[in-house]
């Protein structure tokens, strides 16, 4: 009895320690990046304080700004999860971009034809996006499990295939009349509604994203499937020894990742644009890699990382409005944050070893050498 309790409280302490440790890196990275950014802003002849004020105001300064941040963050949560799930199973999914396109075109096509269902269409279409994303994600999984084709290349290649496929569908068979090339609008009643509260276009897709993050958390740490995925990710040898099939786990992990990104594409179409026009959004999949790694491949971290990315993007808008700092600076800042965020040794140099040990719960360097 007492053993059980002791174990539990030490588990809690360990978890808290890990969480605190996990936050140290991003925070230090952000602080350092802002310092470097200030120098750049100064170099362009602007006042860094004013610039950062604008950045903050643009990100969280008003309900509208918060709405923009949430709007930007929503798809990144999905693509971040797509990377994180696979990563936990020892796989590197660079295919989020293509998987998102597959989900988006699914939503655009089905959304139009099921529009007569009204709000009922929303869950149906989103489930379909989940499914097509799942199937598309399963392809690199099968290629790896069956033929040993490296998933990093196949997912990169499949991105191009998916984007071209979705573009073809939107521009040729499912194209609608009109000046903007792309599919028809989905019936307004069958779209994901906005939240309101002065949050602008931020829509309930955000909650779908949060539910997806929670689901991924539960899947990974509270289900037998997740146990298996993590075991395979951390030690394929031990997983095989324990009788788990590595091939099946590989397919499932990439497919579940694909499902997340596909759902993201669906939410983007159903919640933001109401259709798929060409050009569609770009780089959400690639930014998802940054989001996931920034969030240390933990669903909660992914949500925070996506909010940071989203906030920077919406802050950048205010920045170009209020100052002469070019839009590109936002990219540069993001790049610097990313550069610093996993620089364990640097943080160690600044704060000493304790911090690194606290944060060593998630090893980023594992799982790539397959």
């Amino acid at each position, binding site marked *: 009895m007492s053993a059980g309790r002791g174990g539990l409280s030490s588990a809690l302490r360990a978890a808290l320690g890990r969480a605190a440790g996990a936050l140290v890196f991003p925070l230090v990275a952000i602080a350092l990046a802002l310092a470097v950014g200030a120098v750049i802003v100064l170099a362009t002849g602007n006042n860094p304080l004013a610039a950062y004020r604008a950045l903050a105001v643009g990100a969280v300064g008003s309900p509208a700004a918060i709405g923009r941040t949430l709007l930007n963050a929503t798809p990144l949560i999905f693509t971040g999860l797509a990377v994180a799930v696979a990563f936990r199973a020892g796989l590197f999914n660079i295919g989020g971009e293509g998987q998102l396109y597959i989900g988006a075109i699914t939503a655009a096509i089905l959304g139009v034809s099921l529009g007569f269902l009204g709000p009922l269409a929303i869950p149906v279409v989103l489930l379909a996006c989940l499914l097509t994303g799942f199937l598309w994600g399963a392809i690199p999984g099968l290629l790896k499990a069956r033929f*040993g084709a490296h998933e990093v*290349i196949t997912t990169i290649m499949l991105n191009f295939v998916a984007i071209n496929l979705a573009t073809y569908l939107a521009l040729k068979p499912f194209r609608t009349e009109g000046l903007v090339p792309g599919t028809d609008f989905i019936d307004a009643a069958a779209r994901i509604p906005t939240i309101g509260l002065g949050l602008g276009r931020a829509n309930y897709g955000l909650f779908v994203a949060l539910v997806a993050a929670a689901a991924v958390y539960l899947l990974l740490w509270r289900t037998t499937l997740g146990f298996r995925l993590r075991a395979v990710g951390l030690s394929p040898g031990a997983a095989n020894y324990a009788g788990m099939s590595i091939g099946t786990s590989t397919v499932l992990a990439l497919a579940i990742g694909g499902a997340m990104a596909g759902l993201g594409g669906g939410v983007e179409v159903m919640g933001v644009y109401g259709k798929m026009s060409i050009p569609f959004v770009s780089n959400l999949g690639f930014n998802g890699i940054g989001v996931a790694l920034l969030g240390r491949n933990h669903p909660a971290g992914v949500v925070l990382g996506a909010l940071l990315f989203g906030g920077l993007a919406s802050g950048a808008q205010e920045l170009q409005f209020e100052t002469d700092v070019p839009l590109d600076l936002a990219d540069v800042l993001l790049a610097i*944050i990313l550069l610093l965020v996993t620089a364990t040794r640097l943080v160690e140099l600044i704060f000493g070893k304790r911090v690194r040990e606290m944060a060593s719960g998630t090893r980023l360097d594992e799982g790539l050498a397959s």
Partner: protein
Amino acid sequence: MEELLGGLAPLLASMVRNATPLVFAALGGMFSERSGVVNIGLEGLMLISAFAGVAGAFYSGSAWVGLLFALGAGLGFALIHALMSITFEADQIISGTAINLLALGGTGFLMELVFGRSGTSPRVQGFEPVAIPVLSEIPVVGRAFFDQSLLVYLMYAMVPLTYLLVFRTPFGLRLRGTGEAPEAVDTAGVSVARMRYYGVALSGLLAALGGVYLSMGILSAFTEGMTNGRGFIALAALIFGRWNPVGAAGAAFLFGLAQAFIFQAPQDVIPLEFLQMIPYVLTIVVLAGFGGRAVAPAAIGKPYRKE
């Protein structure tokens, strides 16, 4: 027959031009990855060098000075990646992603500063095609392979050179060892960090050649975002070629050929979208069918620390 051969030469020439930046970048990636450092930042290294080359030529009026600038920029950015991922033990994928972003944002930022305009830079002196006397007169292949920019000839030389460097010299032996078993190299008295710095630095220099060929060999101006994913394709070529210089170059040429084919095929018969898929589908098929299991250097992606 005559006509077939007539169409072949330009196709091959186009293949060479498409492949050249990929070969350079893939060879660069090989040095980095053979030393155990993933370099997903090839795209950014190419882009910043493409820019720096044009900027250098713009200021000096000389393509050669431009080339020096490009090499400097590629090296500089590569060293950032090295500092982060080797010395500070940052995650190599993130660091590479950041390099890409930094190059994209940075070139956009600098365009205005250097050229006073954004988008496309003014034209500068580039590396024009130079026909090699006898070789370029060989039927069909002569024009395609030996009437090209000097940088292309440099690329031809680079493939055997890197092969020899990696498989025949002490440096190469140590480099390969570092990517496979850093502790073995360390205990043999060779500094792992130093070898990795060399590897990443070389990847910067070679990617720079790829970038500068794009902006000053094929073209003679810089356009924002002009690398357009070629760094990622180069990475695929590297893996496809199993981290071997000759294999990587072969894969790059295959991709180059597939790209050249897109512009030869009639766009009104096959939708462009499908034509554009060809190189990618081809890669997947070859990888699944014949490529077998690609074996990465064993220690790739892992920071090396002694304690």
